[in-house]
């Protein structure tokens, strides 16, 4: 018996040792491939990847290493070396699974215009496999093949294939630009012009505009003839655009049509009328995206009419709200400043337009202005880096207006593992600094999206379901009804802050017929809250109370290390307490011991709760966050119409710290 026990113990210890060694080895392997991938200097990167292959010949990431050596050698113009790694890479993958690898290799070669015979073979094989396996993404493979055929000078074949590929993507500017290029190459200039114009009206603001202008100037030499041709094409494209979009909001369609006319440079008075009408239609409660779109469109028209002061006024009014990848906006702003001789501002605007993604038109304008201004390449790079730093470390300042009496409630659904939540989380930190709690109450509900988050609890998920439960993270609800989904990298913090601030200040102007006040005490593990709720309430109004921890330090996968106003408990869960139409006094209690126990129990095993996806394996937490810091608590109370979800009034109160 004793021997058996000893054997079992030894077996257990040996298994634990093996498991630990295996985990350690796996972590080391992942760290090494990550650090090799992060090397910028190509020869060093290649060497690091080769070493990785040598050290981990059976790694799951060998394919990546081969593929990366291939593309690094291509970038270094060492074509033969590059080719020797294509075979190694592809050999790792069973032939029936090579759709993406064939396509990626073919695309890379076509972009570089090297090894086109190989690209021809790979792109053909990719299309054949895609046809067999799943036609959902077939157009993507056909598009690559068309590019290869075009590079090979087989223009008619490229055109025929792109015409096939575009089916189902007829308004996608990427496909339209490619199609127009192949039409031009196949000698079909009229078609090419029309397709390029269609790309412009559908949002392409770069290659299509450049090509359109170039082809027009090649087609007709006189200015008058050029205008006539442009008008003819614009009329045809607009007619189809109006037909295809007749069910959608006319004002919006006309605004887009107006900016299209400005971009192709015809009928500018019509363009001005349409875009002006759209701006005039804006109301105080118009959606923020509509405000940006209409004002930007009018500004583009003004700029085209050389009314630069008017253009600048419109652009500046939305500058804080627009995101870094609205290329149209940043190009027009930069160009307007440049035309007005404000070159410093122009450089700054162009930089803002390429900070997230590259854009040829903006880069070219920036480079030529920098040259004119005597800014060297390295100085320009430093300016871009500085701009990025500014965006990630901005200071929001403080709201200095008198409280209106309406306390807006901002509810953020987030996840500590959710990459795009970093911008929303950061923006909420900034909101908490900017607005006092007498103007803005904040709640952050954590969810297991995309992966386990220990600040989640069953009630945060119930609140997610209360708002429909069909959205991702980050999603924000302002006063229950203004919903904004989407975040991004940390450099978008300022942009998200500006947008959230805009919505909040708009809601603060709404008059509330309800007043809430009260106080909180803490004694013997009980947080007692006494509220006085006065004013008109409808029959669907409920009182909600949330116990929040004002800050929790925890680093998840998205790198956010401090989480504010984390919801720990909701009285009456997501639905709150029925007010029964009465105004009056309410006294509620949070039992901290019970809440603590339930959080601990949940973190011990979250898998049986609906907040957990039963098919996701629970492998433990990075670290636990269930211990409530009783000296850092607050309560948020609000009255909400549960049928419309509209929040009628909110209230925030700090919970006094425990007597030491």
């Amino acid at each position: 018996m004793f021997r058996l026990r000893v054997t079992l113990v030894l077996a257990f210890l040996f298994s634990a040792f093996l498991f630990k060694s295996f985990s350690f080895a796996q972590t080391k392997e992942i760290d090494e491939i990550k650090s090799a991938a992060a090397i910028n200097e190509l020869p060093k990167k290649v060497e690091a990847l080769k070493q990785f292959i040598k050290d981990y010949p059976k790694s799951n990431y060998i394919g990546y290493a081969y593929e990366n050596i291939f593309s690094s050698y291509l970038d270094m113009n060492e074509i033969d070396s590059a080719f020797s790694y294509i075979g190694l890479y592809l050999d790792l993958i069973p032939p029936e699974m090579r759709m993406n690898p064939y396509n990626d290799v073919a695309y890379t070669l076509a972009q570089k215009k090297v090894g086109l015979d190989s690209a021809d073979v790979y792109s053909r094989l990719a299309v054949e496999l895609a046809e067999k396996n799943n036609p959902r993404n077939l157009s993507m493979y056909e598009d690559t093949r068309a590019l290869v055929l075009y590079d090979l000078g087989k223009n008619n074949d490229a055109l025929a294939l792109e015409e096939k590929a575009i089916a189902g993507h007829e308004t996608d500017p990427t496909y339209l630009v490619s199609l127009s290029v192949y039409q031009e190459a196949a000698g079909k200039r009229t078609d090419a012009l029309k397709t390029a114009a269609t790309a412009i009206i559908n949002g392409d603001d770069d290659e299509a505009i450049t090509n359109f202008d170039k082809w027009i100037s090649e087609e007709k030499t006189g200015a008058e003839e050029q205008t006539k041709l442009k008008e003819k094409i614009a009329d045809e494209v607009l007619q189809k655009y109006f037909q295809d979009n007749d069910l959608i909001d006319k004002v919006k369609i006309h605004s887009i049509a107006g900016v299209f006319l400005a971009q192709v440079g015809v009928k500018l008075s019509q363009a001005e009328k349409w875009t002006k009408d759209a701006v005039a239609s804006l109301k105080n409660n118009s959606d923020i995206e509509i405000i940006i779109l209409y004002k930007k469109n009018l500004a583009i028209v003004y700029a085209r009419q050389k009314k630069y002061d008017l253009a600048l006024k419109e652009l500046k009014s939305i500058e804080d709200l627009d995101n870094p990848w609205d290329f149209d906006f940043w190009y027009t702003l930069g160009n307007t400043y440049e035309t007005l001789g404000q070159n410093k501002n122009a450089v700054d605007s162009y930089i803002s337009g390429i900070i997230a993604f590259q854009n040829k038109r903006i880069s070219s304008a920036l480079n030529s202005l920098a040259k004119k201004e005597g800014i060297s390449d390295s100085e320009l790079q430093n300016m871009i880096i500085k701009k990025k730093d500014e965006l990630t470390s901005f200071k929001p300042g403080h709201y200095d207006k008198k409280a209106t009496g309406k306390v807006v409630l901002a509810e953020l659904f987030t996840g500590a593992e959710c990459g795009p939540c970093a911008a929303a989380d950061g923006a909420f930190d900034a909101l908490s600094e900017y607005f006092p709690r007498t103007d803005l109450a904040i709640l952050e509900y954590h969810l297991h999206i995309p992966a386990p988050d220990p600040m989640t609890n069953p009630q945060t998920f119930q609140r997610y379901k209360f708002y429909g439960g069909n959205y991702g993270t980050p999603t924000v609800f302002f006063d229950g009804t203004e919903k904004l989904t989407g975040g991004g990298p940390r450099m978008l913090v300022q942009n998200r802050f500006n947008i959230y601030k805009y919505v909040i200040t708009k809601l603060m102007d709404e008059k509330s017929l309800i007043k809430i006040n009260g106080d909180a005490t803490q004694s013997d593990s009980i947080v007692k809250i006494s509220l006085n709720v006065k004013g008109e309430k409808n029959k669907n109004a409920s009182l909600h109370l949330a116990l929040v921890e004002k800050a929790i330090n925890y680093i998840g996968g998205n790198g956010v290390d401090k989480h504010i106003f984390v919801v720990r408990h909701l009285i009456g869960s997501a639905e709150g307490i029925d007010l029964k139409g009465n105004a009056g006094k309410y006294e509620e209690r949070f039992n901290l011991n019970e809440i603590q126990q339930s959080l601990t129990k949940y973190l011990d095993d979250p898998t049986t709760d609906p907040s957990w996806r039963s098919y996701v394996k629970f492998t433990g937490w990075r670290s636990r966050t269930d211990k409530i810091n009783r000296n850092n608590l607050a309560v948020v109370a609000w009255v909400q119409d549960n049928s419309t979800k509209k929040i009628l009034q909110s209230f925030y109160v700090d919970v006094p710290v425990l007597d030491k």
Partner: protein
Amino acid sequence: MRTKIFLILISFTVTFFYADVTAQSFSPDKVVDVKVKVNNKLSKDGLVEAVINLSILRGWHINSNKPLDNNLSPTSIKILDNPNFKVVKINFPPPLMKKLSFSDSQLALYEGDAPVSIELKSLIKGPNKKIRVEGEVDYQPCNDETCLFPVKKNFSFEIKLKK
């Protein structure tokens, strides 16, 4: 067109605000379309092969079967137990390794198509027999602006055994 381009494209065609419209009502099960291609021919060893293609919606990605971060939900495929066959091998494609706009380090992902091959050994004798295979695929989607809950999707297919 390379899959990489799609993320960039969605970032300027589907801006933050339009993402509001699209992502709000977007169900994670729409991100991946599962189609199965079966090779009905029985090998000498009684093996049949099928390719389960996970076709990922443009602009979205899912984690690979072995994400670099252990906390992320891997894409997994489970074939439900059946007395007529046993699963010999499930072979996932190599991941696409990339650094997204919101990530500080590389992620191991699938974009575009991720064909997963499975090898089954028939436990029933003789040709012209049919085997129904049922399975589940788990994945967790994100794009540049939003992440969705992990999702489980069921699939089934039929193998008509031929010599």
